[in-house]
C-alpha cells in the first residue's frame, strides 16, 4: 500500500517543459530517500492547463504543483514527501475535487465544464487498466453483454441523440442501424486520423483514457454484430499509439477483449492501423482504402461503408470522441445523456480553443453554449493586447465568423443558419493583427498540399485558389479575380469527390461575406 501517489501529467505541453526529466529525477530522489515502498510515481493524461510547465498532482494531499523543474525535486521530496510540508511556491491550488480536477484547479478561469468523454483524463493513470476498472470502467460493457439485446443497444444510442463528433454530425444510432441487420463478416473502425488543423481532442482522449475507446468499440461491435475492430491512428501520434497498444493488450489479458467476453458468446478483438501522413484519410472511405494498404483515395458513395466498407464488408466508421461517449450512454441511459446539451444536439462537445486567448486548450462543455461564453468563461478571455476579430470554427475547412455571431449557440443546427459548421470542434481565435488575406493564404496552402489528386475539381481548384490567395496577399488580385475564386470554390463544392474539395467554399465565402471591407483594401 502506498501512502502517497505522485501523478505526472504527461501531454505535449508538459513533455515539452521537461516532464520526463523531472519524473526521472523524482524516481531517483525517492529511491535515494528510501521511500520507494511508500511513494508511487505514475503518469496521467492532460488536465488542460497550458503554459504551466511540468505539472504534478499529489494524492491524497490534493496538492497540485506547477512549473516544477529538476532543481525543485529535492526540495519537494525532503519537505513534502518526508515532512509533509508542501512546497508552497509551486502549489497552484490547495484544494480540488475528483473527478473534475480541471474545474476547480483553475477556478477563476475554467468553470463548469461537464466532463463525460474526458471524465478520467488527468484523474487515472491511462496505462493502468485497474484504475479504469476502479472508476466504473467496463461496467457498461458488462451491462450491455449480460442484460441487453443488440437491437436494444442500437435503440438506446438512437434515443440518446448522439451525433458523430468527427465533423459531419451524422446520428450515430442511425448509422449503426444500417449495418446491424446485415449478415456476414462486419467491422467496427475507429477514425483516429485526426488531421484537421487545430484539432487534438482525439489525441488527448487516446492518451488520457484509452480503455474508454476500447469499451465503446466493443459495445458498438456487439450492437452491430461485428467481432473485429480497427483503430486507424495518425502516424504522428506516437504516444497515442503506445498507450492504446498497451491498453488493448491489457484488455485482452483481463478478458474484456477476446473470446467469450463476460462469459457470453460475444467475441471481439481490436487492432491498430497506423497512418502515414495524409489529411484526406480522415475521410471515411479514404481511410478504408488506406487500411487496405492503398493510396488514400476516397471511394464513390453510395454504397456507404455501412454496407460496403473495409474488405468490401459492412463497416461502421466512428470518430474517437463519438465512441468514447457510448459507454456513458449505455451505463446511465439515453435520458441522462439528453439532460446535457440541446434538443437536437444532446450531450457534450470537446472543443479545442486556440489562438489569441489567455488559456488555449481543450474543454468539454454541453452543446449549445456560445462562442462568447467559451472565450470569456473557459479560455480566460482574449490574450493581453488582443481584440477579437474573427474565429474559424471546425478547423481549416470551417467558416470564419465575425463579432456579430459571438452569441450564436454552438451546435450543428444553429451554426448551419450562418452557413458555418461545427466540424471537429476546433476554434481558432484571430485578433485584429491577423490579416485575413494572409490567413486565407495559409489555409489554401494546406488544402493544395493535402488534395489527394483523384478528382480534377479539387486537384486543380486548390492550386488555383492557392495561387490567387498569394496574389491577393501581395495586392495583385483584382476584385473580378476574387469573385472568380468564389465561383471556383462553388464549382468545387458541387463537383468534388469528397468533403475536402467540397468545403473550401466555407472559408472563402465567409471571408467574402464578413470581411469584404478588408479584402477591398487588398484588391489591385
Amino acid at each position, binding site marked *: 500500500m502506498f501512502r502517497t501517489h505522485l501523478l505526472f501529467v504527461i501531454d505535449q505541453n508538459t513533455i*515539452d517543459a521537461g516532464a520526463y526529466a523531472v519524473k526521472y529525477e523524482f524516481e531517483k530522489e525517492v529511491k535515494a530517500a528510501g521511500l520507494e515502498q511508500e511513494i508511487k510515481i505514475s503518469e496521467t493524461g492532460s488536465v488542460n492547463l497550458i503554459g504551466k510547465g511540468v505539472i504534478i498532482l499529489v494524492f491524497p494531499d490534493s496538492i497540485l504543483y506547477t512549473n516544477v523543474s529538476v532543481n525543485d525535486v529535492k526540495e519537494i521530496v525532503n519537505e513534502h514527501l518526508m515532512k509533509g510540508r508542501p512546497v508552497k511556491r509551486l502549489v497552484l491550488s490547495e484544494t480540488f475535487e475528483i473527478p473534475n480536477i480541471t474545474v476547480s484547479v483553475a477556478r477563476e478561469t475554467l468553470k463548469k465544464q461537464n466532463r463525460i468523454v474526458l471524465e478520467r483524463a488527468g484523474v487515472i493513470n491511462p496505462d493502468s487498466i485497474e484504475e479504469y476498472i476502479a472508476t466504473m470502467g467496463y461496467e457498461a460493457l458488462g451491462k450491455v453483454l449480460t442484460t441487453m439485446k443488440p437491437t436494444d443497444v442500437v435503440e438506446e444510442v438512437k434515443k440518446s441523440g448522439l451525433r458523430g463528433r468527427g465533423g459531419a454530425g451524422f446520428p450515430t444510432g442511425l448509422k449503426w442501424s444500417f449495418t446491424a441487420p446485415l449478415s456476414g463478416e462486419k467491422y467496427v473502425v475507429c477514425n483516429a486520423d485526426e488531421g484537421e*488543423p487545430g484539432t487534438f481532442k482525439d489525441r488527448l482522449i487516446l492518451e488520457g483514457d484509452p480503455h474508454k475507446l476500447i469499451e465503446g468499440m466493443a459495445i458498438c461491435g456487439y450492437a452491430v454484430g461485428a467481432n473485429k475492430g480497427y483503430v486507424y491512428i495518425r502516424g504522428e501520434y506516437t504516444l497515442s499509439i503506445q498507450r492504446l497498444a498497451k491498453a488493448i493488450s491489457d484488455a485482452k489479458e483481463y478478458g474484456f477483449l477476446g473470446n467469450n467476453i463476460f462469459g457470453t458468446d460475444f467475441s471481439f478483438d481490436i487492432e491498430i492501423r497506423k497512418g502515414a501522413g495524409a489529411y484526406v484519410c480522415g475521410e471515411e472511405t479514404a481511410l478504408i482504402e488506406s487500411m487496405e494498404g492503398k493510396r*488514400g483515395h476516397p471511394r464513390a458513395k453510395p454504397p456507404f461503408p455501412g454496407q460496403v466498407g473495409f474488405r468490401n464488408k459492412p463497416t461502421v466508421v466512428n470518430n474517437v470522441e463519438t465512441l468514447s461517449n457510448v459507454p456513458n450512454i449505455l451505463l446511465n441511459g439515453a435520458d441522462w445523456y439528453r439532460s446535457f446539451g440541446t434538443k437536437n444536439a444532446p450531450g457534450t462537445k470537446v472543443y479545442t480553443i486556440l489562438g489569441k486567448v489567455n488559456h488555449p486548450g481543450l474543454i468539454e462543455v454541453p452543446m449549445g453554449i456560445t462562442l462568447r461564453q467559451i472565450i470569456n468563461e473557459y479560455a480566460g478571455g482574449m490574450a493581453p493586447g488582443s481584440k477579437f476579430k474573427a474565429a*474559424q470554427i471546425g478547423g481549416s475547412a470551417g467558416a470564419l465568423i465575425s463579432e456579430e455571431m459571438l452569441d450564436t449557440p454552438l451546435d450543428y443546427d444553429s451554426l448551419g443558419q450562418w452557413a458555418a459548421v461545427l466540424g471537429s470542434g*476546433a476554434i481558432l481565435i484571430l485578433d485584429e493583427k491577423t490579416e485575413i488575406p494572409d490567413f486565407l493564404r495559409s489555409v489554401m496552402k494546406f488544402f493544395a498540399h493535402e488534395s489527394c489528386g483523384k478528382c480534377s475539381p479539387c486537384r486543380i481548384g486548390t492550386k488555383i485558389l492557392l495561387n490567387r490567395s498569394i496574389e491577393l496577399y501581395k495586392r495583385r488580385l483584382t476584385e473580378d479575380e476574387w469573385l472568380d475564386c468564389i465561383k471556383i470554390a462553388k464549382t468545387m463544392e458541387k463537383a468534388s469527390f469528397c468533403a475536402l474539395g467540397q468545403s473550401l467554399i466555407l472559408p472563402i465565402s465567409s471571408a467574402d461575406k464578413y470581411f469584404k471591407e478588408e479584402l477591398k483594401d487588398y484588391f489591385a
Partner: protein
Amino acid sequence: MDKTILEKYAPDPENLLFILHDIQDSKTDHYLSFNDLQQVAKYLNLPVSKVQGVATFYSMYSLEPRGKYIIRVCESAPCHVMGALDILKEFKEVLGLEEIGMTTKDKLFTLETSACLGVCGVAPACMINDVVYGNLTKEKIRQIINDLRKGGSNV
C-alpha cells in the same frame, strides 16, 4: 534492408504501410530506396508501381535519403497565426539550408514542413523525429539544434 522486417508481417498487401514505416525507421537516413520498394513488392506480390504509388502518396515516407534528425515544422493555420513563418526562417538560417526538403551537408538534419501535428496548444511547434517541441522561439531553436549537434539525445 533488414530482411527480418518483412518476415514480421504476413505477405498481405494490407500490411504495406506498416512495412514501409518499419523499413524507413530502421535506417539512419530515413528513406525508402528503389531497391527497398522492389523487395517489398516482391514479398507482397504487388507491382512495384503500386508500392511506389503508396510510398509517394503519404508525406511521412521519403524516397530521398534524409538526415539523422528530421525536423517537421507545422505550418497549419493555428501555428501560422502564432508565427510559424518566422520559425521556419530561423531553422533555415541556423541550419544553413536554402530550401525546405534539403538536408545539411553533415547529414544530420533534414528540414521539412508538415500539416497540423495536433499540438496546437503549444504553437508554433515542430516535431524532430518522434519528439514534439513547442512554444518555439528563435533562442529555443538555436538551443535545440546546438544540443542535437553536440550529440545530445532527442528527448
